[in-house]
């Protein structure tokens, strides 16, 4: 360290100048990192949604709000809205009733294989809606094991299918919080003479109530914007707002009524978001946190029984019925018994003569995989940028507030239904931003729509890991001589890489199964697998029905495989999902 005074002073001065230009570059880079995802969102999300709203209020380019009272005056509208609310409320209730024991067993008890069980429980959440819809149809529909109950096309089946997905959402959201809860208040209550039931109602439940409330609002949102399930299992009488928008657009070309219904859906979603924000603010109560896990005791038997019944009857039964159904031929003979055959799987490659679709199901699968890979890449790139920007903690209060808004804006697609998004893209992308380039004739809109749907999930998987980095780690790197770029490359990126596997899995699964937006954007020559399955399933008794079951098995197996692989890659740091 034989620095002469002059040498040091010169090098420090040079450093000072370099900082000036370095900082300018840094500001430019962070601005770009924030601007790219925002621009993508503005063009492919905000613009379509706004023009959809405009459609509801105009006739031939002139302001005309008469469509709104016209649609609101129809009794059909209100039966659809009522049906949406009933399905969402019942679906949420059942998900909570089954999800709380699951949260307890998966997150609060200690036993071998718990991690594996938790991993398996993510699968129902990511399974494509079309696959689950077809699976429930194969249980309750004609020829299914429970067909005799006559429940096909009833509200109960729709609610069961909604719970299929959302039990896991409740288990994850509530369980993550529950596993951190200090057990000593419960122990104190026990010592005061309260039995296990009383302890749960008087001590545990009030403590987990905020987590329960935020899970409930999330699940309500998912149920109220469910499209694939209701389209396949509901039929016309059980239409919700989503399927009604689709029906009005595709069958009746009544864009205006569809737009007004979209506005109704906005209002519904906004109301749920406002309520959930209220509840989340109340969640910030003081509970003492202390991670614990209990050994299994006899008193846990009821909870374990509920979880076992959920997994066996709600999750496994439809999957097994789907698999069995896909391996049976068309009902034949007087005894009604069908024979075992791989014909349905052969039909995936060689479509039968009466097939209602262009090309084979295998072609659709290839298209789906290509589109999903592209969509996941877009979502990962944008999501990585968003996570990097949103994980910064600037000193300036204005910038910090800006980052909060940024984070919120990226989550918007989560709140707007996929059907609205697909419909909006269809309306606007004939001349995007006034450029005479009709994007609707190309298939590029499909991966874009799927990326938008996957983006919030990717961000939620990446962000907690980056936010979890102790800011002093970056300080430590800086005082060791690492510039901002080197800090990013050596501290942030390695950790981002570790959770990238999980994020990629979620993105691929979400894109592969995406149905709501995609069904507006597919073209006869480029169909995705979920869209094809939904078309085939409507034809009971023909070869198409069996082909749909086989296609659903393939799609479900691929999605589940991707998710289980991604779970194995995930880092120790828990993502929010």
């Amino acid at each position: 360290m034989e620095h002469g005074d002059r040498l040091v002073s010169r090098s420090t001065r040079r450093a000072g100048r370099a900082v000036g230009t370095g900082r300018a570059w840094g500001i430019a880079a962070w601005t770009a990192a924030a601007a790219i995802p925002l621009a993508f969102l503005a063009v492919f999300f905000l613009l379509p949604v706004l023009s959809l709203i405009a459609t509801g209020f105009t006739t031939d380019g002139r302001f005309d709000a008469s469509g709104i009272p016209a649609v609101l005056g129809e009794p059909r509208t209100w039966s659809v809205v009522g049906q949406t609310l009933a399905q969402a409320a019942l679906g949420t209730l059942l998900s909570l009733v089954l999800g709380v024991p699951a949260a307890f067993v998966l997150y609060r008890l200690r036993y071998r294989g718990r991690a594996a069980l938790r991993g398996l429980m993510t699968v129902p959440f990511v399974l494509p809606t079309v696959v689950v819809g077809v699976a429930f149809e194969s249980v309750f529909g004609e020829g299914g094991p429970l067909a005799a109950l006559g429940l096909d096309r009833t509200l109960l089946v729709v609610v069961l299918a909604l719970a299929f997905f959302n039990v896991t959402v409740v288990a994850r959201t509530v369980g993550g919080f529950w596993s951190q809860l200090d057990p000593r208040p419960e122990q104190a209550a026990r010592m005061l003479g309260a039995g296990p039931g009383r302890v749960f109602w008087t001590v545990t439940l009030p403590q987990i109530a905020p987590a329960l409330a935020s899970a409930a609002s999330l699940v309500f949102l998912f149920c109220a914007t469910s499209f694939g399930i209701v389209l396949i299992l509901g039929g016309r009488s059980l239409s919700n707002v989503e399927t009604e928008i689709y029906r009005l657009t595709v069958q009746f070309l009544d864009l205006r009524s569809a737009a007004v219904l979209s506005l109704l859906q906005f209002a519904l979603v906004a109301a749920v978001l406002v309520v959930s924000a209220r509840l989340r603010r109340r969640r910030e109560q003081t509970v003492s946190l202390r991670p614990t896990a209990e050994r299994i005791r006899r008193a846990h038997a009821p909870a374990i029984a509920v979880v076992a019944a959920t997994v066996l009857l709600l999750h496994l039964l439809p999957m097994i019925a789907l698999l069995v159904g896909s391996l049976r031929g068309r009902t034949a003979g007087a005894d009604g018994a069908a024979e075992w055959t791989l014909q349905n799987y052969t039909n995936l490659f060689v479509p039968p003569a009466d097939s209602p679709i262009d090309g084979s199901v295998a072609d659709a699968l290839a298209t789906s995989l290509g589109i999903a890979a592209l969509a996941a890449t877009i979502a990962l790139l944008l999501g990585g940028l968003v996570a990097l920007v949103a994980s910064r903690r600037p000193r300036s209060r204005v910038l910090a507030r800006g980052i909060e808004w940024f984070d919120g804006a990226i989550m918007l697609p989560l709140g707007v239904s996929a059907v609205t998004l697909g419909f909006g893209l269809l309306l606007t992308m004939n001349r995007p931003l006034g450029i005479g380039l009709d994007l609707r004739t190309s298939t590029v809109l499909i991966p874009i729509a799927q990326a938008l749907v996957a983006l919030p999930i990717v961000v939620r998987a990446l962000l907690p890991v980056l936010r979890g980095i102790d800011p002093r780690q970056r300080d430590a790197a800086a005082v060791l001589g690492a510039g901002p770029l080197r800090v990013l490359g050596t501290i942030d990126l390695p950790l981002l890489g570790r959770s990238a596997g999980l994020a990629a899995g979620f993105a691929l699964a979400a894109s592969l199964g995406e149905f709501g937006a995609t069904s507006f954007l597919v073209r006869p020559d480029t169909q995705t697998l979920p869209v094809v399955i939904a078309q085939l399933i409507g034809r009971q008794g023909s070869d198409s029905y069996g082909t749909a079951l086989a296609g659903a098995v393939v799609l479900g197996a691929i999605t589940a495989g991707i998710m289980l692989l991604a779970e194995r890659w995930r880092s120790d740091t828990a993502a929010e999902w």
Partner: protein
Amino acid sequence: MAESDVTGLAISTRGLFVDRATVRYPGTEASARPAVDGASLAVEEREVAALLGPSGCGKSTLLRAIAGLEPLAEGRIAWAGDDLAGVAPHRRGFGLMFQDGQLFGHRTVGANVAYGLEAQRMPKPERAVRVAELLELVGLPGAERRRVTELSGGERQRIALARSLAPRPRLLLLDEPLSALDRELRTRLAEDLARLLRETGTTAILVTHDPEEAEAIAGRVVRMRDGRVLAEESAA
């Protein structure tokens, strides 16, 4: 060239000079007392000074300000007569050792120690030699390939010290480096630390709340209270 100053301290052309530095945390009221409130301090080259004070007196914040991690609201910090305002932490050539080490969990022991050398773009063979040398120095020879997570508390702090010393900082800042350890280990590591700083001829500021530790390691003890530096006293 030494210019005179109102506080009576001479601005040395060698070593560190902190002149009435004030640090306010963002979000605090302007009327609230700042974390560091007009603190002045001078440290000569090759000197080891201790900043001693109760927790919350602003000593760690002052240390972070010297490192460039907290901006000054008022006052200035200079090294060898050059004002450091606007010089980013990574360009100051200072080292900072954290209370809890802040080792990089995703890197091996060797890669942690090599981190500052990589930032200096030192060629790989030289880097390996330097890392081995430092691990030897802190009493953990051959630990290059071990994982950070399998180190004990004392070993972690030794590696953190090796990592801070590796790029040969012109000033080493030590933020309560031993207070996370148990008493026996603390006494032993304090001796080692004093010897290492002496042997490497490192200029250092040690922040601590333990008078014994300050005496054992530093040649001079400076007391801090309520964000201000109090009168100095000489150690034996």
